[in-house]
């Protein structure tokens, strides 16, 4: 293996597992430290720069950062990164005057944004302060997209949404609600410099099996039904409800049903539990509210008596699994009728663009998904961009935000007439965290405390009020403990090979045995030659330059490093130092600053 080039900005970035996994690359440890210091407002603003909606995401983010979090490898569970984001949002002071403001004058460039979901809102958030005249067209009477129409209020209160969307609209963004775009051609001919399509993936999948049409009155398409509930067109449902599908939409449907009068709600899954698409915490939350989740039931037909739905017949499935848990064989072991009053279909969403003419230069693939560049988010027609669920199919809010950031950069370049792909690279800026002998700019001690449990509103009370927020937020004590669980992975171990005298002190003190001094070899061999074999291949090995006395190399397996700084405290020559890595993630305003600097 060659010595590691730590000047590659991605090397240290990858070490910050959470930040690397976050689509918007939120500097998680930085905001957790701010919370630890009681700087909630600062913590909120650090979040907002990356992910735009800290209050919203602090409640409902899909949190890809948490399964990635190093803490989950060191002990049982990851840091409650998402919950701590909410802490910053809940405890912040007024930030109206601290977020980007409406500019004194505009630059005369007009941008049309279709849909007021998180993708379009992010584009507007990034472009409006730079002087772009942004107009958002939204078919519904309220902005927010699926965040308002589908995510239930008991998970995401409307006030939180309104406040954070408000910060964006206050930057001088024009919002036209109740305004459905019926023709992209017409819009693109009405004088806009660029168009951003953030219209989502609005079509819920149907289940065309026997009895579907006869029972139509009691069969609901999940996302449409949730929207009707959110916009108060529907306020009740029958007593016995079956939810078909076991994704995140299904979880919202079952819990909403309980709040609209159902008392027997079953989620029907075709496959065993390990194949469920819903996040584990959403499954837990539903089961906590006494929802039954039945596995291995495949829908066969709707049972209709006297023109009314009375139940549903299922095939009982049996699966043969191989060693890796993949299904190798399927068998139907029988059938079963389960009585019900209503069925909600939550089996997926699709893109639909009936309002985009097929002859205006925008190409679609065979599934009706537009062809979009993964870096620039431009469609096959210049000046027309996609982002969020409309671009590559349904994802989540944080991906919509990241798409929005990237599309904003492209739109700016498009309007400037520069190449869309000549974007600022990411960077890393290192600064020693040393303040004195064994004194660091961060708290390097390790706590063995386990993850704090989110307190919940009382069950009966929350089921009787559809809008009552279930999660009540961490207490002061919980915050104080949880912040200390973060390992500060952005405080990097930085090695200076010429200083090392090979005394082994760092290797001996490392609590997770991640350092070794060994003869250099190819990666596969090297991974096995360490103090503890480096079997997590997702995690890099740091390889030093050859050491002066023996020509061996210092290897660090990044996998379990606690960032406790003990190697640096123990090193007699300061060959190891702890350095705070500031990962630079360019946004569109950085692009404009670069132009100004040139």
């Amino acid at each position: 293996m060659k010595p590691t080039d730590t000047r590659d900005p991605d090397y240290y970035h990858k070490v910050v597992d959470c930040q690397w996994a976050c689509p918007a690359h939120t500097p998680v440890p930085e905001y957790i430290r701010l919370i630890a210091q009681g700087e909630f407002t600062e913590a909120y603003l650090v979040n907002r720069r990356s992910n735009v909606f800290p209050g919203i995401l602090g409640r409902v983010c899909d949190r890809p950062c948490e399964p990635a979090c190093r803490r989950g490898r060191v002990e049982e569970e990851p840091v409650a990164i998402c919950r701590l984001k909410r802490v910053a949002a809940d405890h912040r002071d007024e930030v109206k005057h601290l977020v980007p403001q409406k500019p004194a004058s505009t630059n005369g460039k007009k941008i049309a944004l279709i849909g007021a979901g998180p993708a379009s809102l992010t584009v507007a958030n990034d472009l409006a302060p730079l002087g772009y005249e942004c107009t958002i067209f939204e078919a519904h009477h309220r902005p927010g997209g699926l965040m308002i129409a589908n995510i239930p209020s008991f998970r995401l209160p409307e006030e939180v949404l309104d406040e954070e969307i408000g910060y964006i609209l206050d930057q001088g963004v024009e919002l036209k609600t109740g305004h459905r775009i019926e023709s992209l051609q017409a819009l693109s001919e009405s004088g806009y410099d660029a168009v951003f399509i953030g219209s989502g993936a609005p079509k819920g999948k149907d289940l065309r099996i026997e009895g579907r049409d006869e029972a139509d009155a009691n069969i609901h398409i999940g996302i449409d039904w949730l929207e009707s509930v959110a916009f108060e067109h529907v306020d009740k449902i029958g007593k016995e409800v079956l939810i078909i599908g076991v994704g995140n939409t299904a979880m919202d449907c079952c819990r909403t049903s309980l709040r609209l009068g159902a008392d027997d709600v079953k989620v029907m899954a075709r496959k065993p539990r390990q194949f469920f698409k819903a996040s584990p915490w959403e499954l837990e939350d539903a089961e906590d509210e006494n929802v039954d989740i039945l596995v291995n039931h495949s829908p066969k037909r709707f049972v209709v008596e006297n023109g009314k739905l009375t139940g549903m017949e299922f095939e009982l499935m049996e699966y043969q699994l191989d060693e890796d848990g993949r299904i190798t064989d399927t068998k139907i072991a029988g059938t079963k009728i389960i009585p019900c009053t209503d069925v909600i279909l939550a089996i997926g969403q699709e893109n639909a663009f009936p309002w985009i003419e097929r002859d205006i230069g925008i190409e679609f693939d065979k599934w009706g998904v537009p062809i979009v560049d993964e870096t620039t988010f431009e469609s096959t027609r210049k000046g027309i961009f996609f982002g969020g669920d409309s671009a590559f199919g349904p994802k989540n809010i944080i991906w919509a935000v990241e798409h929005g950031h990237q599309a904003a950069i492209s739109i700016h370049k498009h309007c400037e007439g520069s190449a869309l792909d000549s974007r600022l690279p990411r960077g890393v800026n290192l600064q020693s965290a040393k303040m004195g002998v064994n004194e660091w700019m961060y708290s390097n001690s390790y706590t063995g405390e386990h993850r704090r449990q989110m307190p919940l509103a009382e069950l009966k009370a929350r089921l009787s009020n559809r809008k009552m927020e279930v999660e009540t937020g961490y207490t002061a004590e919980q915050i104080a403990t949880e912040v200390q669980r973060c390992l500060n992975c952005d405080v990097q171990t930085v090695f200076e090979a010429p200083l090392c005298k090979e005394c082994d002190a760092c290797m001996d003190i490392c609590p997770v045995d991640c350092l070794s001094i060994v003869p250099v070899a190819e990666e596969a061999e090297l991974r096995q030659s360490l103090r503890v074999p480096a079997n997590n291949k997702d995690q890099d090995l740091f390889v030093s330059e050859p050491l002066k006395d023996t020509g061996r190399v210092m290897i660090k397996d990044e996998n379990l490093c606690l960032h406790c700084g003990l190697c640096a405290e123990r090193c007699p020559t300061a060959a190891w130092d702890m350095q705070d890595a500031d990962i630079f993630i360019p946004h569109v305003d950085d692009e404009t600053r670069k132009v100004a600097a040139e």
Partner: protein
Amino acid sequence: MTSMSKPFIDKHLPKNKLGLSVRNYEGVMSTLCAGCGHDSVTAALVQAFWELDLAPESAAKVSGIGCSSKTTAYFMGQSHGINCVHGRMPSVATGANAANGDLNYIGISGDGDSLSIGFGQFAHSIRRNLNMLYILENNGVYGLTKGQFSAAADYGSKSKKGIENDQMPIDPCVQALTLGAGFVARAFSGDKTQLVPLIKAGLKHKGFALIDVISPCVTFNDHAGSTKSYAHTYKYYHPLVHTDFVAHADEVTGAYDQDGAMRVTMQDGGELFLRKTESDYDPRDRAQAIETLLMNKTEGEIRTGLLYLNSDLPDMQAANKLPKTPLNQVPYESLTPGKAALAKLQARYR
């Protein structure tokens, strides 16, 4: 020393036959200078004890005075130990060993502790063939008292202030050989691939096992001109034999027998494989060992490895026919047979 002790995390580590990870063999936080060789010897002891599947509480740690002697607190925290008066560890070890031969005696000393004030004690514990592993952490100075030359400092070696040592050194390995020790080794704190198997072999050797470990004092003797620095030791480091210790017969594989390795069965169980790294060195030849250490020291080579092995000598317990049962397991009535028995005994000497 660090600002905090090492957090206890061992879910990533393998367990030995007792179900323990290597972390279960550590002791309290070291207060030595960062980079001190002695800490590395501590880590090697922890590793060796773990690899041998010995219960941590089966260790009996004895030491004198010095930075080296302090380290008994840093390993096998669940076992008993004693810091004796300067240079007097061997006497205490002798008494303890006579009272309880079942424990694994680990003596930790320094070049100051063993070769000046404790020189006589050191010599006699070898003559007695006390069953113990005696580790002499050799840094050429009195570290604890701020870096005066010790009796092990080489002639011409320079102190931190640049003053040359003008006395001849005492070589503890040569001394041990002339005094009849059955297990004499030299190692370096910077090479655990050699040190760990030597510690294992030393623990399993029945009788006195000396390992003289070059263990640099990073604060007072790690400069240019010192012959006990890291850089100097790495440069002149010269292993003569490589030792592998295999504790369980079923783990002996072909890999150990290669290159005509010499196989020795230890009295306390386990097999030793000694592989020559240089033409004609035979660790069973005492005269050759002494000669190798004293003569032909071309270019200042530091010759390491298991320099001499004779596992047939009776240890103190056997030579003196001491009772096999540790005294703490002998019933009170037999230990103190009473006034009448004493009177009878005294009558024999009248």
